[in-house]
């Protein structure tokens, strides 16, 4: 029985994993880089140990150090979260060699699925449909160009070890091919320590739809239905929903069957995700299998009622799955919005920095999984994901209205965020109609990022408030010392704007 889990990750997913540990009575161990000493996962876990300097390569990717902390803290299992070492075969092996439990699938399954090219040939054998494409690309530019011409533009370059959009480039014409390849290789090397890149046909109006898989060590494999993840920018998901508004019940059944076949072909264990591309004619192709917890797992949790992290831990404990396929029912509709520290109107540039003020959306049907708090400085070394906002409602239309309400309540300042950008997505007709594919953001970027037509009244009042605040600042020192505070201390200077009348 697992009694103490080391979470080899940071940010919202580390906090989320510790939450489930806490509910199961399992002690949690956080690890942190120097940039994360004040991060919420450190404060929230039962124990916390320093890994090393800020760069991932010296901290969250440092296998030796993580395992030595696990031993020292007497953790009996390691949860890798997503990203970082979550799909690293060496890490899984080293954990097992150290006599610890890896909360994830076997090293063999990671290896098989982790290298996208191996996975493609494996799926071909298992009878799972794959997207036309290449093996690892040859050295010579001319050979690469030839392959691209054979497949036909546009083509997609992908890091073999990839995930999360890193090392991925869409190439529309031959002149962009080699520069894009160099950039993709560079990103792949930085992100995964492996610069192998391959090429795939780029499908027309494709949907990105994935199936959540749960499997135990006793041969049971179930799916927890699909997630529609076609709202993407820079090949990173922004909004996910379940059920998909695009697929039919028949298509859902066919895809679920292949997803389970894919998982079974590698004797999968634990939580995993089989990603498909579905073209406009509803042909579907295996894209890849992520052998880890997925960022967007909460929408599946919300419609099925299953806590996927708890289920992972139980599987790692060798327990059989608690649910059979016909007991798993999708109820209502769930949507997740990823809240990033980024500037949507400026090419989605990341915006690390100090969180000045935050108001979480609350109330009926709303969940946030985040990790920042007022006064926390988001480091520039890691992902720009601040939090995930998940809503549920009986119908898709209600869920969209609820998401709009929650986004209205969600206030984060100090850093730039994509909150109003997501609000624009919720109001865009193709999204409201459920009629969108992975080009949605690119095709509508202008209307999605255009500022609301500002009414003159709002602007006038903003000008007045800037003026009043400025005048108040000039008078502040005097007010501050004059103020009678009930607590005896000037804790915060709220309430009446001016303590005396300066006019």
């Amino acid at each position, binding site marked *: 029985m697992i009694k103490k889990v080391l979470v080899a990750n940071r940010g919202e997913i580390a906090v989320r994993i510790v939450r489930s540990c806490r509910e199961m009575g399992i002690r949690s161990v956080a690890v942190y880089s120097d940039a994360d000493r004040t991060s919420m996962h450190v404060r929230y876990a039962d124990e916390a140990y320093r890994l090393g300097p800020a760069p991932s390569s010296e901290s969250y990717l440092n296998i030796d150090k993580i395992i030595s902390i696990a031993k020292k803290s007497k953790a009996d299992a390691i949860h890798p979260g997503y990203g970082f070492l979550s799909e690293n075969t060496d890490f899984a092996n080293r954990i097992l060699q150290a006599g610890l439990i890896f909360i994830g699938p076997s090293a063999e399954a990671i290896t098989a699925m982790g290298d996208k090219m191996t996975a493609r040939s494996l799926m071909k054998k298992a009878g799972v449909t794959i997207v036309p494409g290449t093996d690892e690309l040859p050295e010579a530019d001319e050979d690469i160009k030839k392959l691209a011409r054979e497949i036909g533009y546009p083509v997609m370059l992908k890091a073999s070890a990839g995930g999360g959009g890193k090392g991925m480039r869409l190439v529309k014409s031959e002149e962009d091919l080699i520069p894009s390849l160099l950039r993709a290789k560079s990103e792949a090397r930085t992100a995964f320590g492996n610069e192998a890149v391959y090429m795939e046909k780029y499908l027309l109006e494709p949907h990105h739809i994935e199936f959540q898989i749960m499997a135990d060590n006793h041969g049971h494999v179930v799916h927890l239905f699909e997630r529609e993840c076609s709202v993407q920018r*820079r090949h990173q998901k922004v909004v996910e929903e379940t059920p998909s508004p695009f697929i039919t019940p028949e298509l859902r059944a066919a895809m679920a069957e292949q997803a389970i076949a894919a998982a079974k072909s590698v004797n999968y264990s634990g939580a995993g995700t089989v990603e498909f591309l579905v073209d406009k004619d509803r042909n579907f192709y295996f894209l890849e299998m992520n052998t880890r917890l997925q960022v967007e797992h909460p929408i599946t949790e919300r419609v099925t009622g299953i806590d996927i992290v708890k289920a992972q831990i139980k599987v790692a404990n060798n327990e059989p799955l608690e649910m059979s396929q016909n007991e798993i029912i999708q109820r209502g509709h769930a949507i997740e919005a990823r809240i990033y520290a980024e500037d949507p109107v400026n090419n989605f540039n990341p915006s690390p920095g100090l969180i000045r003020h935050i108001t979480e959306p609350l109330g009926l049907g709303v969940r946030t999984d985040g990790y920042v708090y007022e006064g926390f400085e988001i480091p520039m070394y890691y992902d720009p994901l601040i939090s995930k906002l998940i809503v549920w409602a009986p119908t898709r239309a209600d869920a969209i209205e609820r998401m709009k309400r929650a986004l209205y309540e969600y206030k984060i300042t100090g850093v730039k965020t994509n909150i109003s950008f997501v609000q624009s997505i919720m109001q865009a007709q193709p999204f409201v109609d459920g009629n969108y594919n992975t080009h949605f953001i690119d095709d509508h970027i202008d209307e999605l990022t255009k500022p609301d037509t500002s009414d003159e009244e709002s602007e006038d009042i903003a*000008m007045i408030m800037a003026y009043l605040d400025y005048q108040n600042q000039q008078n502040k020192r005097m007010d501050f010392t004059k103020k009678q505070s009930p607590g005896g201390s000037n804790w915060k200077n709220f309430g009446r704007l001016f303590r005396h009348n300066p006019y």
Partner: protein
Amino acid sequence: MKMHVKSGNKEKSIKVLKKEGDIFTVSVGEKTYELDVVKVEEGVYSILNNGNSINMEMIASDQPGNYKVNTLYNSFNIDVLPAVAFSPNGKVKKEAHQLIKSPMPGKIVRVKVKVGDTVEAGTPLIVLSAMKMENEIKSEGKGTVTKVAVKEDDLVKDGQLMIDIKV
């Protein structure tokens, strides 16, 4: 005291006509507003304008009198201009330099030009990395590099000068 306030290109004069408790009567340009204003959190105000409930957050920048004001769906960049400094005809001299500033906090991955290089519109200048994304920053026009203020592996802040190009 009458003062001038700028929002983007618009510039208006503002005067507080009356203040009774939390009720401010203020003229802005041609218009007059009666606002019930209360500070509810650090930098956050609750405003009632003729019954409409408005929340505004003020973020003061480094520059005195410069604010980013967030309303529900809009964000305004506002400057309070001290009456003395206000000079309606004083136009800033046309910039003869292209100043390449960092668009975000990050780390310099590569510097692709050196002092003396001539660049065209689109010439790559710098590769900047933040939050695991690499961004290539290009020149907006032609010119000659007169200063390179950063080197590889430097950490830069948002808005920090990186390269000066004489147009």
